[in-house]
Each structure stands twice: as C-alpha cells, then as structure tokens.
C-alpha cells in the first residue's frame, strides 16, 4: 500500500488499523461509481439478456410469468428480413458517415492550423453542429431535404436534376438523407480531435523537413499523417462506435421508413420493444447489436494496437 503510486509514505504510527482504514478510504472514492455501474449498466445488460431468452410481453410487466424460451427470440430476429436490412443499412450508414465526416473534418482541421485572424472565433462556431440537440438538427434537415425545400432548389438550379427528390419520402433516398444529416452533425467531433492532434505535432519536425528540401505535400504525408496515427485511430474507433448506435437523427427524420429503407439496428430494436411491445425479440435484437459493436471494437483495437493486452 505505502509507496505504491499515488500513496506517499505517511509519517504516522503504522498499525494494522491504519492500513485497513487507508485502503477502505481509497475504495470510498470508487464506490459510488462502482455501485452506479453495477446498478445501471451491468444489471440492465444482464436483464436485457435475460429477457431476450424469455417470452416477455407487456403483460409480464404486471406479473405474468415470462417462460424461458431459449434462443427462440434470437431465431425470430435472425429470420426477419428487416433485421438484415437494418444491419446492412447500419453498415452503409456508418461507413459513409465516417468517411465523409473524417475527410471533411481533417481538411478543416488542416486548414485551421494556419494562424489567421478570427481563427479561434470561427472554431467556436464549428463545434456547434455536434453539440446542438440532435432533434433540432434533425428537424432542420427535415426541412432542408423537404421535397420542396432548399436542397432540391439548389440541386435543380445547378442542373443536377430535373425533378425534385423526395429525400425523405422516396425509399431510394431515405438512407442517404439521414446520412447527410448525420455527416453534418459529426464533422465537429472529427474536427476538434484532429485539430488538437495536429496542434501537438512539434514544429521542429517541419523545420527539419523543410531544410531537407521537402515540399508541402511531402511534409503532410511523411510527417503529419504518421504523427496523427494514434489520434486518427481513436477518432475512427469512437466514430464507428457512436455512429452505429445512432437513433435520434433517423427516428426524427424518417422513423426508419419509408418501408424500412432507412431502418438501422437502433430503430429496429426500438420498434420491437416500444412499438410492438415484444420485449423478447427486442432484447434479442439489442443484445445482437451490442455483441456486434463490441466485436467490431475489439477487432479494431487489436488491429490498431498490436501487442497491447486487452
């Protein structure tokens, strides 16, 4: 206990009582969070898994017993074509969102490395899309992407189409509509992390490179990107995790429709439990979703940081 990191040697008469008190005191700091984690994270997850193995309907809330049905709920979900549609939509939605968010965020972050007048002023605004309540952003895009709204006006005006697109009403476009909104919302997250990462690169690196005759491009590729690798890895990992969970944007804009064309795992799961009140399959779908995200994260972390014990 004494001498280990964080606990200095205490110049006090040491006996067993003090030692016990000291270690108990340490745990007191962690106790509330640990209790919270058990009550509101672990227990719900376990409960979720339990319900997924049972025939649990709304009546079960009032005490009707919920018989154990093994993996029947899982089978029901995996048999549902909408589940697979939601899965593929989630993949498309996530990959497309992250690709655009990351590239745009990186470009803006690179641009703002330059010291110019009002730089800090603008950066304050640039974080707004991410922090504004998502329902507000989603509503704005409902309008911007309205069949009679501004985006169609611009597209037609630029000659990029002759007919207004029913972004939210046409099954071919609904997923892209919510993706567009999600990209806008997620750019600041990428921007802020990448910007700060870029700020952390020592200027001497660029000096040395310039002396060696490197031009702008070469500096970027051979200095900036390698230095940014850890930040990029983190941004992509967190971005993937957060994006695959997205619910609000899609629910407010399309509710997963029309005809399940913008259904994702989060909305799919929600509908099972809170619209159909079939908690069994709902929990099964939710469990599958969690396992999926967890697996991808583990794979990703293993790939990005080889040799790091998990």
């Amino acid at each position, binding site marked *: 206990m004494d001498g280990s990191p964080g606990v200095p040697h205490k110049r006090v008469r040491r006996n067993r009582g003090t030692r016990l008190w000291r270690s108990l005191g340490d745990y007191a700091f962690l106790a509330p969070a640990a209790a919270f984690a058990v009550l509101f994270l672990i227990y719900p997850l376990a409960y979720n898994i339990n319900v997924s193995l049972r025939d649990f309907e709304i009546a079960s809330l009032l005490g009707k017993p919920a018989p154990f049905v093994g993996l029947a709920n899982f089978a029901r979900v995996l048999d549902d074509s909408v589940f697979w549609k939601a899965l593929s939509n989630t993949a498309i939605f996530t990959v497309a969102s992250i690709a655009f968010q990351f590239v745009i965020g990186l470009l*803006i972050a690179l641009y703002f490395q330059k010291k110019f007048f009002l730089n800090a002023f603008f950066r304050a605004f640039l974080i707004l899309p991410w922090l504004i309540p998502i329902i507000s952003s989603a509503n704005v895009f409902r309008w911007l992407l309205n069949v009679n709204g501004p985006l169609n006006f611009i597209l037609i005006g630029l000659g990029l189409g002759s007919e207004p697109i029913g972004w939210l009403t046409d099954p071919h476009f609904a997923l892209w509509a919510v993706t567009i909104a999600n990209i806008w919302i997620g750019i600041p997250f990428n921007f802020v992390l990448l910007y700060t990462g870029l700020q952390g690169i020592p200027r001497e690196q660029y000096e040395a490179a310039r002396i060696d005759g490197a031009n702008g491009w070469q500096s970027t590729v051979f200095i900036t990107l390698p230095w940014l690798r850890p930040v990029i890895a983190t941004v992509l990992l967190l971005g993937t*995790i957060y994006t695959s969970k997205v619910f609000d944007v899609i629910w407010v804009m399309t509710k997963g429709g029309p005809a399940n064309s913008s259904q994702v795992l989060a909305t799919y799961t929600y509908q099972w439990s809170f619209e159909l009140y079939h908690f069994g399959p709902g929990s099964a779908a939710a469990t599958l979703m969690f396992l999926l995200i967890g697996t991808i994260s583990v794979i990703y972390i293993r790939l990005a940081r080889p040799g790091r014990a998990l």
Partner: protein
Amino acid sequence: MRAHRDRDVRKVVRNTLWTLGGTAITAVMMVPIYWMVISGFMTQKEMFHVPPYLWPVRPTLDVWKAVVASLAPSFLNSVIISLGTMTLTLLVAVPAAYAVAKLPVRGKGPFIMTILASQMLPAVVIAMPLFLLFSRFHLTNSLLGLILADSTFTIPFATLVLQAYMHNVPLELIEAAYIDGASKLRAFLSVVVPVSLPGIATAAIFGFLIPWGDFIYALTMVTNNNLQPLTLALYQNISQYRILWPNLMAGSALVALPVIIFVLAANRFISTGITAGAVKE
C-alpha cells in the same frame, strides 16, 4: 526598408485571404443553424417561396411567441433534468476518476473495462431494461428516472475525461498535503480538485449539455405531458397535425439556443475536454 514593408503587406494579404477562407468554411457549416433561426421569423408560405428567401422578408414574432408559449412548461423540466444529471455525474465521476488515476485500488481494471464497454452500449440496450426496472419502482414518468437514465452515459464519459486530467496531477502536490497532516478526503478536496478544475468544468458542461439534448430516454420513459423535457415536447406537440414548418424551426432553435449561447461562451473547456477524454487513455 522597402523589403520590410513588402513583406508586411504580403503577410496581411495572406492573413486576410486565409480569414476569408475560414469565413466561407464556417458560413457553410452554419447554414442549417442559420436557416433554422430565420425560418422562425417567416410564415409557412414564405418558407416555401421559390426561390427560397435567404433573409426573412417580413420578420414576425408571431411564431416565436406561439412556440415559447407551448414549450415553456417543459423548459423547467429540462433544466431540472440537466442540472440533476450534471450534479450526480460530478459527485460520482470526480472521485471515481481520482481513484482510477491515482489510488491503488483493486478492481480498477474491470471497472475501466465496464466504463469503456458502456460506451459501446446502444441507448436502446439500456432503455429497455431501465424502462422495465423503473416500472417496478414507479420511476417511469419521473424526473429522477430520467436523471438516472441520462447519467448512464454522462458518468462513464465524465470518468474517462477526468481520469485523463487527473493522471497529470503531480504526485508531489498530493504528498505535500499528506505530509501536512491532511486526511485523504482533505487532500482530494484541497489539492486534486482545484488542480483538475478545467477537467471538472468540461465534465460539468457535458454533464449538462448531453441530457439537455437527450431524446431517446425521454421518449421511452415519459408519457406524462407535465414531465416532458423540451426535446420530447418539441417532438410531440409541434408536429402533431400538419407540419407547421416555421413553428418546428422556431421550436428547434429555442431548444438549441441555450446550447449555442453556452458553447460560444465556454468554447475552451469543451475542445480540450473532448480531446483529453478521447485521445489519452
């Protein structure tokens, strides 16, 4: 002499050009927010005008007044939920972060794993069991229930951000406090907390802003109209019948307004906070 002046002029020109570019980038990113705000000043017909108005032609406060009236009852609910979540989050996460960063506590590893894993938990995974759990304890349709639900995200998030900050508190400062006879709690309160204040400020900000924008937990757990937070009120009341776009935009703007004001004022803490939590580990 002339060479100096030429260089200065070129510097100013370059600076101005970069600033213009920065203005363009920011302006494009702000378009949706801008549109949201000006639409509140228009009528439904004006919004659908072709070509779209870039500025309210006949600004009217009618829509804003109507929306304020319909959202006002929910404002207090949102404030209570957000303040409550923020408080609970700080009370739980700050000591926990200290324990993780500095104290020799056993079980740290599993605890951190749980925290990290919780970031991967979709809200629906938690919403369903919480809904069922709260039903048993009559916590559905209660502000406390929402506070607890929102905290399932903010507490892990704040813990991650704060433990990164607290790693950097110099050991000597804490030891000095112990040598002066301070108890563990005293050392924590008078040394660690003040030094970590920027991190705590960030945790507080997110602890408030995240519940302010929460939608899914409110959607799942609140059916009593009196207890609706702003997000739910916006979702239900305004879009009930044919969509009144100016009202929807004005309502969205109002719900976003406190965030906008706050972010512009407290920008520094937010940027550093996100980075500390995400990059360090």
